[in-house]
């Protein structure tokens, strides 16, 4: 459904944040993109949504295709209209607006009736924010804010939903609520998902396929089970204590890999 081909991204025409990244999100799948701080995950999502220019970022080479059609270079509004929605890092709510106003804005590209139906769906998924619909969103708890952020993106009727570290800083119970909702939508309405996470455990349980990015490059990819049982991922990502084998090569390997742990 979505394909990135050999993408290179520079900030300020000088800082290379992403280099030669290719990845694919098949229709109906949940794909995880894992990596540590500064690896380039958010940069990739911003590139897909077409908002890199806001930070003086630019796709220097490569292409982004949505169902075979090039969307790199399109206006963010057109990308949203085509059903590609993002829950940005750190929630980025319209903090001075009420919960419901946030959600209504999520449906900005949709018709009035679709917006009304969307509100019902979102409130069904997250009853907690229904109780708070008239409150200013900036004053909600972190968990409630994340529900509003996810709900706002859902209001745009995503065919592909991208989430940027939705579990960050949230209590396990809230993370569970949010991930349940996403899995449910994926199963019931065939919503495709691209999930950016640092919590590899969680992401590899949810996703069917994963990519691991380090210093702007994809260093490993494969089906989620394969990644879960991969020795490196286990040792350096999932936090399992390693096995007994330790050759020089592994040590060097370790040094390289451990950067996406730090």
């Amino acid at each position, binding site marked *: 459904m979505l394909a990135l081909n050999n993408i290179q991204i520079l900030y300020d025409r000088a800082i290379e944040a992403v280099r030669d990244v290719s990845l694919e999100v098949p229709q109906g799948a949940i794909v995880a993109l894992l990596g540590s701080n500064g690896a380039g995950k958010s940069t990739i999502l911003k590139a897909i*949504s*077409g*908002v890199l*220019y*806001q930070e*003086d970022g630019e796709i220097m080479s490569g292409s982004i295709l949505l169902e075979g059609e090039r969307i790199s270079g399109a*206006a*963010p*509004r057109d990308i*949203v*209209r085509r059903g590609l*929605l*993002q829950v*940005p890092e*750190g929630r*980025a*709510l*319209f*903090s*001075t*607006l009420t919960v419901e*106003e*946030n959600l*209504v*804005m*999520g449906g*900005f*590209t949709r018709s009035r009736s679709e917006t009304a139906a969307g509100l019902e769906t979102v409130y069904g998924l997250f009853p907690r924010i229904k109780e708070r619909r008239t409150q*200013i969103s*900036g*004053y909600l708890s*972190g968990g409630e*804010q994340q529900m509003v952020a996810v709900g*706002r*993106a859902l*209001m*745009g009727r995503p065919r592909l939903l991208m989430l940027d570290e939705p579990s960050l*800083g949230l209590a396990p119970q809230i993370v569970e609520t949010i991930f349940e909702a996403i899995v449910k939508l994926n199963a019931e309405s065939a919503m495709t998902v691209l999930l950016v996470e640092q919590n590899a455990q969680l992401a590899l349980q949810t996703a069917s396929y994963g990519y691991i990015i380090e210093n702007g490059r994809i260093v490993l990819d494969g089906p989620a089970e394969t990644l879960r049982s991969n020795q490196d991922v286990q040792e350096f990502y999932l936090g399992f204590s390693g096995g007994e084998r330790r050759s020089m090569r592994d040590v060097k390997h370790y040094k390289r890999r451990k950067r996406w742990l730090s």
Partner: protein
Amino acid sequence: MDFLLLLLASGLVSGAAYGLIAMGFALIFKSTGVVNFAQGELVMLTAYISFTLYSTFDLSFFPLMLVTIPISMAIGLALERLFIRPMLGEPIFAIVMVTVGLAVVLRGITIMIWGPDPFNFNAGIPTEVVELGGVPFYPAQLYLIGALAVLTAAGWAFLRFSRMGIAMRAVAANETAALLVGISVSRIHAIAWMLSAAIASIAGVLFAANFKLAPDLWFQGLRSFPAVILGGMDSVIGSAVAGLVIGVIENLFQGYVGQGLREISGFIVIVIVLMVRPFGLFGSRDIERV
């Protein structure tokens, strides 16, 4: 007592003009982050255009505004497209400097076309004095206060209930997030300039009808600054109320303290207010919560 009533009444009239001009400022600042130093010149230019329409077609007030407002909106749109849009991505300071330059140019153009001499311009408003609660008013004074009341109510309803109005507040709150839900931020900016120019024209015509139409009309832009700041820069409704407050205070100062103090009293008030509430009376304190 009568003296006080008169001062209050004339304070409300000049305050209504401040309020209208400040609303125009706030609308642009709120959605684009730019302090438009050409707002006073926009008031001036649109008032002169309206004057020419009036003297050519001899219209009464409402038909006159029906023609003036769309023309003013077109001017607002043109200014945004030609001078502000190309500056997108430049530092805000640079954009503000562009509005300063724009102000000088618009002032020059206006004086070039209409000359330096003042005109009498009643904007098709009747001129017989009416009495309200024992205080005599010119209809133009009541039109001015009425315009502020109507626009404040309309502005409030627009920002609160219409999709476009909520989108304007969304852009003010978080521009990137607005893009991510599919709001065209540049369209919102253009709409803000158009609405602001519309309000400027109403302010300009009614100010000219109350006082006179002269090339120093642009100066009302600066005189409205205390109201802009008191209103908290980004509160459209707050600026309207702040305009009235400043107008009344100025007149009370003039009446009870001394002539010369009128001009500076507004600024004294804002210095005091800013010391107590740095975000103005109605401005939004940034909500920050992680």
